[in-house]
């Protein structure tokens, strides 16, 4: 067991902002190590949403009255916050969707419809289903080839394989995770984008996990599209983001049709509104957008430097503690990794492990983590996964490790 190092941020002060963390489960304090599935919400976010509904709410973009004006301002100002968060060149490039999954489906439908048979989309073996299935559906619908870049046994992108799959210049889009939700691997996004561009491909990063743990700068990465989801970033469910370069978004047809996304409508011919509205049909998740803005402000106030340092310390501690549990195998050995640790335990299936951990108040996820092809690649049926947030403590990781020792004994 390694030394417990002082946390680089005031975890206890942060924990006090998350009311749910003082709940108990089966009579035990909740040790929530499932933040990669969805994070808990700070009071600031909860209050921002409730206050909106209590004090200043109406539909947006439609009313000339005070409530609608103010709510529109609040809703629209989230675009500024998101643009600042990811250093997007323009607020108008921020498109709201309901989650990462919808954002990727939007891209697969809309950008996908501009691709020609014979062109390819290149993903990797370590994608979440959200970044596999939409491209399979595009393949089956439009005759686009789906290519899969391999990963190494350590769980990193196999660079030679990646380059070879770009080599013939037929890849129109690289769609890759920026951080694996199973292995914790950060992919070298700037290098990936450069290679994609050199081969004539555009690149989309699935930042659902990445943006939770580290500052993302889409211009520094030279990305073309970037996607994330609110509920993992300490924000509400029901809202996600697609960022794209204006020139690309501008050339893309809409995905869904309805109110707010039109220029003018006649039965014969309908014209589209400008980006981003073209992609936002219907009443948007208004209260959720307002909550997301508050979540972004909250994350910025804590600061990505502190978050990244904190989570690096947690991950290091977790890897050290878990290494001491007999029969425990950590899945994924990437050099550059975030706060997610998957593992298997000899003699105990991941579900059984998770059930016992839960009995002791420890929430982890077990299963294939919406990454079945990755499981197959790794030669496992399922793993247990502990994932960390800004509120996770080193002590909670000790509870995990100690409990895993008892689980091992239980199944021995």
């Amino acid at each position, binding site marked *: 067991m390694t030394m417990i190092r002082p946390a680089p941020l005031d975890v206890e002060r942060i924990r006090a902002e998350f009311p749910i963390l003082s709940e108990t489960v089966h009579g*035990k*304090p909740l*040790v929530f190590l499932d933040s990669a599935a969805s994070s808990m919400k700070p009071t600031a976010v909860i209050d921002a949403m409730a206050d909106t509904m209590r004090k200043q709410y109406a539909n947006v973009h439609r009313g000339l009255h005070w409530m609608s004006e103010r709510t529109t301002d609040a809703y629209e100002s989230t675009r500024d916050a998101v643009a600042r968060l990811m250093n997007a060149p323009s607020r108008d490039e921020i498109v709201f969707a309901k989650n990462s999954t919808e954002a990727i489906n939007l891209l697969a439908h809309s950008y996908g419809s501009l691709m020609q048979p014979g062109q390819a989309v290149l993903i990797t073996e370590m994608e979440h289903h959200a970044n596999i299935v939409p491209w399979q559906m595009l393949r089956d619908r439009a005759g686009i080839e789906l290519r899969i870049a391999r990963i190494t046994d350590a769980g990193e992108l196999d660079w030679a394989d990646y380059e070879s799959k770009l080599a013939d210049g037929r890849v129109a889009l690289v769609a890759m995770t920026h951080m694996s939700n199973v292995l914790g691997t950060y992919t070298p996004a700037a290098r990936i984008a450069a290679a994609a561009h050199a081969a004539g491909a555009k690149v989309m990063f699935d930042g659902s996990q990445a943006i939770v743990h580290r500052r993302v700068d889409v211009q520094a990465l030279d990305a073309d599209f970037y996607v994330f989801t609110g509920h993992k970033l300490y924000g509400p469910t029901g809202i996600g983001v697609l960022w794209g370069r204006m020139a690309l978004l501008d050339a893309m047809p809409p995905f869904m049709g309805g109110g707010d996304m039109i220029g003018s409508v006649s039965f014969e011919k309908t014209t589209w509104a400008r980006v981003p509205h073209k992609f936002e049909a219907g009443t948007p998740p208004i209260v959720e957008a307002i909550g997301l803005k508050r979540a972004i402000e909250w994350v910025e106030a804590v600061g990505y430097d502190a978050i990244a340092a904190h989570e690096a310390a947690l991950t290091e501690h977790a890897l050290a503690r878990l290494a001491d549990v007999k029969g425990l195998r950590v899945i994924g050995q990437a050099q550059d990794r975030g706060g997610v640790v998957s593992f298997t335990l000899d*003699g*105990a*299936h*991941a*579900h*059984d492990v998770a*059930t*016992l951990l839960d*009995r*002791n*108040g*420890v929430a982890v996820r*077990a*299963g*294939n983590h919406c990454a*079945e092809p990755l*499981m197959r690649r790794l030669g496992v*049926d*399922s793993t247990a996964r502990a994932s960390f947030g800004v509120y996770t*403590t080193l*002590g*909670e990781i*000790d*509870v995990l490790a*100690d*409990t895993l020792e*008892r*689980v091992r004994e*239980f*199944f021995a």
Partner: protein
Amino acid sequence: MSQAASFDDMRDLYQEVIMARGRHPQHQLRLDPYDGAAKGDNPMCGDRVEVRIRMAGDTIAEAGFEARGCAISVASADLMADAITGRTPTEVRTLAERFRVMVHTGACPDCGPEMDPLRPLVGVHEFKSRLKCATLPWDAMLGALKESGHG
């Protein structure tokens, strides 16, 4: 932070026979020839089971399964194979229904001694998210029965 893990109460779920059958199932085999086969999938967690049955006249002569899953699902499949062997499809469907009631409610007023071998799974009713582990093999088995023409 000290958080004592006392798993004594977990023996209700993980009874000895479940631990034993989960680790060393007696019917985990690829039955061939067979009269009916079906797969069960639990996409939420990645469990998968395939059940095969061979009939002798109007009774189930043998059942076998291949499973990828937890102790509960493997033990449930294994105990199920015991319980259905030698029974008619009608009897088996009754068993399946009673099993369903037992694992959902923790009680089975209509259960007779024929259910005794399955009783170790009664603890599952307190673990809602594990119910599917216990019932998945039964769903697959009913599918296999159907495929065999006895559904």
